[in-house]
């Protein structure tokens, strides 16, 4: 159709008109550009942003009119305070937080809002129809617990250390692989292992068990256990979600030969020939214990995994001893023996890394990951998190009242930008440190300004941020970390500003 060609031509014309940043050739020097002053957004825009961030929808027209009146009466602060409180009580906010926790835990998303009558449409029928599993993921103990914590503004720790939630059965006609909460329950736990109706799960305060995220059918179903895995997958998810320790495989398969990894997992004269027939576990009772590269993570994962060992049934009365083990950023060792999942959950909530991690999640959700959390601000937030007794809604209300929330996007301080740059460059240290390359995050890199500048040139060149036509050649394609477009944009912005230090 002619109109299509016209539009295509227009689009191509726009593309052609967009000159690349450094089309004139690489710029050998990093020249600082003037940085615009931060601009506060209008109250009307702030209201829309507030509504979207908390509820995922726009304000109603009447609310804009209310704001206009508040401005005329010089009561804007009071207006936003009341509006924030109102939004934080909405069903949309509760659903949105539930969705965020699903993302954090790498769970499949709930298909429709929890309270929506549309859930009735999710009944298995016909080959292309949505399955009852969709209904299950909307109604289960994990999501119910998150909603309860948010709706009642309970301590965020309740997600880990809660003592009660509601358990849900799965609808009929369900695939046998997908089972409701009740499959995972033990009759011995005082909770029926089979039920056709919702049932409360409540533990006394002195009971060592917990009814938190870690003891839900959904968590267990997502991070399934095997004889070889030995609950490490669950441990890795806990470290990632609650302590922001995202572990990646350290064995990089550069040759394309999978045997290298298998040999690490199954060391010994037979190498990977030991695999097969279910004999691996018996042949290798502690397969990772000898390889330092593996133990960089497994010293943390293995003790935590053991706390789930006796918990084939998630609420089983038998506790399995294990430990919370990790190394702090300052090099300090943490080694807290725990009797089971309940004590593990409690121990996690007592760690400063847990507080910083959760504060970081809230920061990303409400401020944005392009606004790096500087150490100073992080300390402020952690103190506030404690001050509000770790209650999520109070903390959110605080976050949206901070200036970072109300500024027009793309304004950032040098400190914020540097923090963001170091967060990206930190990923390079993993491999380059083994080659004796100085840390990319200890500035000046290499200890002197001249080496620092030389390294900046190398970074710029290897990431193809120097405007040359050469493709990016670092990190290598087989590296487990690859910079996202946002990471590259952050570095580009930093170089454009002259690569400032704090």
């Amino acid at each position, binding site marked *: 159709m002619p109109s299509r060609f016209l539009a*295509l031509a227009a689009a191509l014309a726009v593309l052609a008109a967009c000159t690349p940043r450094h089309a004139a050739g690489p710029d050998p020097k990093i020249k600082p550009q003037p940085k615009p002053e931060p601009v506060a957004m209008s109250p*009307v825009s702030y209201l829309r942003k507030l509504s979207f961030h908390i509820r995922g929808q726009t304000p109603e*027209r009447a609310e804009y009119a209310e704001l206009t009146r508040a401005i005329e009466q010089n009561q804007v602060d009071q207006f936003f305070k009341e509006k924030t409180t109102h939004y934080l009580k909405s069903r949309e906010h509760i659903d949105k937080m539930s969705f965020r926790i699903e993302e954090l835990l*790498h769970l499949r998303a709930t298909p429709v809002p929890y309270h929506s009558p549309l859930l009735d*449409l999710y009944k298995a029928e016909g080959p292309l129809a949505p399955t009852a599993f969709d209904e299950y993921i909307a109604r289960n103990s994990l999501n119910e617990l998150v909603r309860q914590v948010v709706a009642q503004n309970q301590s965020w720790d309740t997600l880990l250390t809660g003592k009660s939630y509601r358990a849900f059965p799965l609808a009929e006609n369900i695939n046998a692989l997908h089972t409701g909460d009740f499959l995972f329950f033990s009759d011995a736990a005082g909770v029926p292992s089979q039920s056709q109706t919702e049932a409360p799960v409540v533990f006394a305060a002195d009971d060592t068990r917990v009814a938190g995220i870690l003891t839900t059918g959904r968590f267990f179903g997502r991070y399934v256990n095997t004889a070889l895995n030995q609950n490490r997958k669950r441990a890795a998810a806990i470290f990632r979600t609650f302590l922001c320790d995202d572990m990646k495989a350290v064995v990089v398969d550069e040759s394309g030969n999978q045997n290298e990894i298998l040999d690490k997992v199954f060391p010994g004269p037979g190498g990977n020939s030991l695999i097969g027939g279910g004999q691996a576990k018996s042949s290798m009772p502690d397969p990772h214990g000898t390889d330092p590269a593996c133990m960089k993570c497994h010293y943390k994962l293995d003790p935590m995994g053991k706390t789930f060992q006796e918990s084939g049934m998630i609420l089983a009365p038998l506790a399995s001893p294990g430990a919370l083990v990790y190394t702090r950023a300052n090099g300090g060792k943490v080694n807290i023996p725990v009797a089971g999942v309940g004590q593990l959950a409690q121990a996690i909530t007592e760690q400063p890394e847990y507080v910083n991690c959760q504060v970081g999640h809230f920061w*990303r959700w409400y401020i944005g*990951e392009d*606004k790096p959390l500087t150490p100073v601000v992080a300390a402020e937030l952690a103190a506030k998190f404690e001050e509000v007794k770790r209650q999520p809604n109070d903390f959110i209300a605080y976050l949206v009242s901070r200036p970072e929330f109300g500024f027009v996007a793309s304004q950032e301080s040098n400190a914020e930008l540097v923090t963001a740059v170091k967060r990206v460059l930190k990923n390079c240290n993993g491999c380059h440190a083994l080659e004796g390359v100085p840390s990319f995050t200890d500035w000046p890199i290499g200890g002197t300004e001249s080496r620092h500048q030389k390294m900046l040139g190398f970074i710029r060149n290897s990431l193809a941020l120097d405007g040359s036509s050469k493709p990016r050649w670092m990190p290598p394609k087989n590296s487990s970390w690859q910079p996202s477009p946002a990471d590259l944009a952050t570095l580009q912005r930093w170089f454009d500003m002259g690569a400032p230090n704090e």
Partner: protein
Amino acid sequence: MNKWFIVFLIFFSSQAFASFSENSRRYLSPKDMFTLLNQKFPVLQDKQHLAKYHFPSDQVPLSCWGLGLRNGNSTGLVLPAIGAAATASPGTAFVRWWGSCVDQIVIKQFMALNLKANDEGLWKKFYAPEILDRYRDKGNVKEPFHRLTSVEWKDLPPNLKQVQIRFLIEELIGPNPVIADLGFAKGIDDLAATIQSIVPDDSNLKISHATQALITGVTLREEFITY
């Protein structure tokens, strides 16, 4: 619907910088998309207008009202396997999905509107009060606004055309300061001029059809899916 037009709007805007990433400026999350569509188009809350299947029918297909495997990648849903969205920013799959769904939802919404001909509260979501007052048939209690489906856009006075376009922009996106702060258009005047070009002044479209086209145009703007 002109698909190239959508592509042009979303991808070749010189100021497009939001992404699926949770930045200080961001695109709607997959959940937000459905929350917002539910807020703006009540037809999505009415089961009788929704299909349980993905393929075309006379109802809104499942992929336009429920989050799932069919639309997860295109909407930027975090994939459980990798803990990240399939793409860092909206791609052609998103454009196809969003454009197609908005098109169908708007059509179904106006069909539903006609079935609720005397539900003034619902009509007020899509027509400016001045338009409803002008074309209200006071003698017809059951269908007071039936003239909106018979009077042509070209017969609407110019000032009322502007009123209707601005009404839709404010209803779907927000007032002038919002448009200006988002920065894709200079302000509501600028955006209204762009939207107005979707339906020529001398168009023979009925007012209701013209309104549908205008609504589709507004919902395809970056301002609608960005905050």
